[in-house]
């Protein structure tokens, strides 16, 4: 741990830290472009000059290229260093088109900041500028090469970090060009990260083009809702429209990057077809009235058929707070018929994961540092893209990836592929654990035995599975395998891809309750007369949509809370519009059991561009914002339960009542989440048996 002095202040940093990072630890920002925490230092931009005044090497050096050494004395304020930085900025700017007024990067541009920090305020260069032809890179990313300062961050991100194969750097000298061989849509599912890493306006978000200045956006720390991994994102809204999403920084989860689904899929927030108006029997109603109607109609069902005639269906997409209050509401109604996903098999897989993950839990950061990742039946690019990116980092760090799946799995890294039909994945897991696996053919067995050897020798191995592909049985076997191969020296890690951002939270709450197929049976034989769906669309999401649709028609009461225009919403007698995660505070428990909060970015309302498409403010006046009816789902249940409608109070109550959710009490969206302790080891067979009863 070297101790060095920077601008007369001492600091001790870990071995291998460079001077730029050491200075930052002292809150001294040395101007820089090419250095990036996730990409490392390459010394390409020559901006980060400082002087080493004492020590083995002295003189002007690039801070990012010099390792901090014991006794080093560094000045970032040295007049020569300051002057050098000024010149570097000036020549980096010689070809710049000075088009900040029409550049989307303006206002959050590192080049603007560094130009000012570098003291370059006047263009002296009067010669011709070098100009480039831009490329059409598809519908998501705009290209303006003239703004490039050749820091190479883009190509390091796209090719090295993300493993993209259709982007590069061409030419030499002062005419290097960053782009594709030919025009065309960027192929990498992580291409959007170019927008975040480029320190200038070369790569900008085309879907956001000319919509807002960065400083006019409402932004808040949030969690991506599009898969179970829980990446940090920062959505930006203006004029009641979710306009863009950029990556948040979460060292244990996504690091600095997100996938293109997380960045460009804006969900239901802006959807013109989104149902925003509460309805009773098809007639628009006020929220209060709709909630009271739900209460009285349910009371009537309970009075006639008993409390167990009411079933409640939660969702992998609803917030943990809503999910907890749904359970509390079930208890107050006196029903045990509570389920958190319409897909019974995924449900079973998620509950087993919740019960067995415990010490096997691994984060994406653990995957990045793993020496052997074995993926069984998982397809990360489809089910959780950042996991694929994490696996690539494992390979870049010298680790290996092995895939066992029914068809070759595309990954942005080298991986061995063993192709086995879905029915044999279970046997393959047995075989990995040392079982005989007689149903497998000899070559498969051989490969699996070799892999078992590898697992035995690995220091930081992780088994990756998927609830969708493996189902309850396979997930259970995967945990058996992890147990069997765990030694006192090291535990086999597990990462299970689940259905949605709060599948894990739902599984924790579902405990020993029934599954959705049992609810359907209950509806079929008339025991269940009422169903309330929280942000869940059983018609679209259950295993047997046709049967579900038919059975829902037999209910005395179907109620739905949602922000999406689903088939279930269309059929519901009582409909309550809910807010999306952009419009409400809440939290999710990710697939590794990590509780993370998201903050409200904006209030709900029909985007201004829809209420006044001609660009003129509306000419009619209301006291209410059009389309602002939706409530956070948790507030609906708080009302039904007669509890506080203040989220901070609710969170404290939840934490007090259920110690598993203790971190909820002080949760902050800008802080990294905390991993929850899982439901203590409820054996799966018990889960299964109790669920069947």
């Amino acid at each position: 741990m070297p101790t060095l002095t920077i601008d007369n202040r001492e600091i001790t940093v870990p071995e291998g830290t460079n001077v730029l990072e050491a200075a930052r630890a002292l809150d001294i920002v040395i101007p820089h472009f090419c250095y990036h925490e996730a990409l490392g230092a390459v010394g390409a931009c020559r901006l980060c000059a400082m002087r080493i005044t004492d020590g083995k090497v002295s003189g002007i050096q690039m801070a990012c290229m010099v390792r901090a050494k014991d006794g080093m004395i560094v000045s970032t304020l040295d007049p020569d260093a300051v002057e050098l930085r000024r010149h570097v900025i000036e020549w980096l700017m010689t070809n710049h088109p000075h088009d900040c007024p029409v550049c989307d990067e303006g206002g959050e541009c590192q080049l603007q900041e560094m130009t000012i920090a570098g003291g370059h305020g006047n263009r002296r260069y009067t010669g011709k500028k070098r100009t480039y032809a831009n490329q059409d890179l598809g519908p998501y990313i705009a290209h303006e090469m003239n703004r490039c300062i050749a820091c190479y961050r883009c190509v390091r991100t796209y090719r090295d970090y993300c493993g993209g194969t259709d982007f590069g750097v061409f030419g030499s000298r002062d005419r290097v060009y960053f782009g594709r061989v030919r025009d065309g849509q960027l192929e990498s599912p992580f291409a959007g990260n170019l927008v975040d890493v480029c320190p200038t306006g070369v790569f900008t978000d085309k879907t956001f083009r000319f919509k807002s200045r960065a400083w006019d956006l409402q932004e808040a720390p949030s969690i991506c809702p599009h898969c179970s991994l829980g990446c940090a994102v920062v959505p930006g809204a203006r004029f009641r429209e979710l306009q863009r999403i950029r990556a948040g920084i979460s060292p244990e989860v996504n690091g600095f990057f997100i996938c293109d689904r997380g960045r460009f899929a804006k969900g239901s927030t802006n959807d013109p077809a989104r149902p925003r108006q509460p309805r009773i029997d098809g007639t628009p109603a006020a929220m209060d009235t709709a909630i009271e109607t739900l209460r009285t109609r349910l009371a009537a069902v309970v009075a006639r058929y008993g409390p167990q005639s009411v079933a409640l269906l939660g969702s992998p997409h609803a917030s943990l707070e809503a999910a907890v209050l749904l359970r509390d509401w079930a208890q107050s109604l006196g029903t045990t018929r509570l389920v958190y996903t319409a897909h019974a098999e995924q449900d079973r897989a998620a509950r087993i994961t919740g019960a067995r993950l415990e010490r096997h839990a691994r984060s994406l950061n653990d995957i990045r540092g793993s020496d052997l990742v074995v993926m069984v039946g998982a397809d990360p690019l489809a089910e959780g893209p950042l996991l694929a990116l994490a696996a690539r980092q494992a390979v870049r760090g010298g680790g290996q990836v092995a895939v066992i799946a029914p068809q070759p799995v595309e990954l942005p890294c080298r991986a061995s592929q063993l192709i086995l039909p879905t029915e044999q994945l279970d046997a393959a897991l047995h075989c990995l654990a040392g079982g005989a696996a007689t149903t497998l053919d000899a070559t498969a067995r051989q490969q699996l035995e070799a892999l078992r050897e590898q697992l035995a020798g690995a220091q930081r191995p992780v088994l990756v599975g998927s609830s969708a592909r493996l189902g309850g049985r396979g997930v259970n076997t995967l945990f058996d395998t992890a147990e069997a191969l765990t030694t006192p020296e090291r535990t086999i890690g597990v990462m299970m891809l689940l259905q949605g951002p709060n599948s894990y939270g739902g599984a924790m709450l579902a405990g020993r309750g029934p599954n959705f197929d049992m609810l359907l049976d209950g509806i079929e034989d008339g025991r269940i007369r009422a169903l309330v769906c929280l942000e869940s669309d059983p018609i679209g999401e259950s295993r047997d949509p046709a049967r579900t649709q038919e059975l829902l028609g037999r209910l005395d009461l179907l109620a739905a809370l949602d922000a999406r225009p689903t088939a279930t919403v269309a059929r519901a007698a009582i409909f309550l519009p809910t807010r999306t995660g952009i419009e409400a505070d809440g939290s999710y428990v990710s697939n590794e059991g990590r509780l993370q909060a998201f903050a409200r970015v904006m209030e709900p309302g029909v985007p201004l561009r829809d209420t006044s498409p001609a660009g003129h403010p509306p000419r009619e006046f209301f006291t209410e914002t059009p389309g602002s009816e939706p409530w956070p789902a948790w507030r609906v249940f708080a009302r039904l339960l007669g509890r506080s409608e203040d989220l901070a109070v609710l969170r404290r109550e939840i934490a007090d009542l259920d110690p598993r959710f203790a971190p909820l009490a002080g949760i902050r969206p800008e802080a990294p989440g905390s991993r929850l302790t899982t439901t203590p080891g409820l054996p799966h067979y018990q889960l299964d048996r109790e669920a069947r009863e």
Partner: protein
Amino acid sequence: MSDLLPQDQRAAFRAKAAAIDHPHELIVDALRAVQSHHGWVPDAGVALVAELLGVLAVEVEEVATFYDKIFRRPVGKKVIHVCDSICCWAGGGEAIAAHLQQTLGIGFGETTSDGMFTLLPTCCLGACGDAPAMMVGLTTHGRLTPESIDRILAQYRAEAAG
């Protein structure tokens, strides 16, 4: 496509690439092979090299565009690289470049209408001791004067005609 590279050379590159750990090392050689056979490297040549060596097209294009002696556009029969670096400049390189442009009737980056010469500037040719210098095809000519240039160009024209 067939005139990019003869089949036997294609096979040779395929075999070499398969036998080594870093087929990227062969990109320059393969590009030069295409260029000497076809005169320059068209898009299809980039694709062919990528396919022969089992590397990405973008990786081939990166190399092809980095080196100014790989031509990604059609050029004349002979390419003249005239040095614009320091020793040649000190030795009257600007006048040499002007003379070349005038005699050939073309600017930098252009090709004579008879398709004989393409004129390009280049950085140091390593012939500083013989400055000012130029390279025609792969042959370097030093201690240039307007007279010697006229002679050299005439010679190449005669060779081409004969």
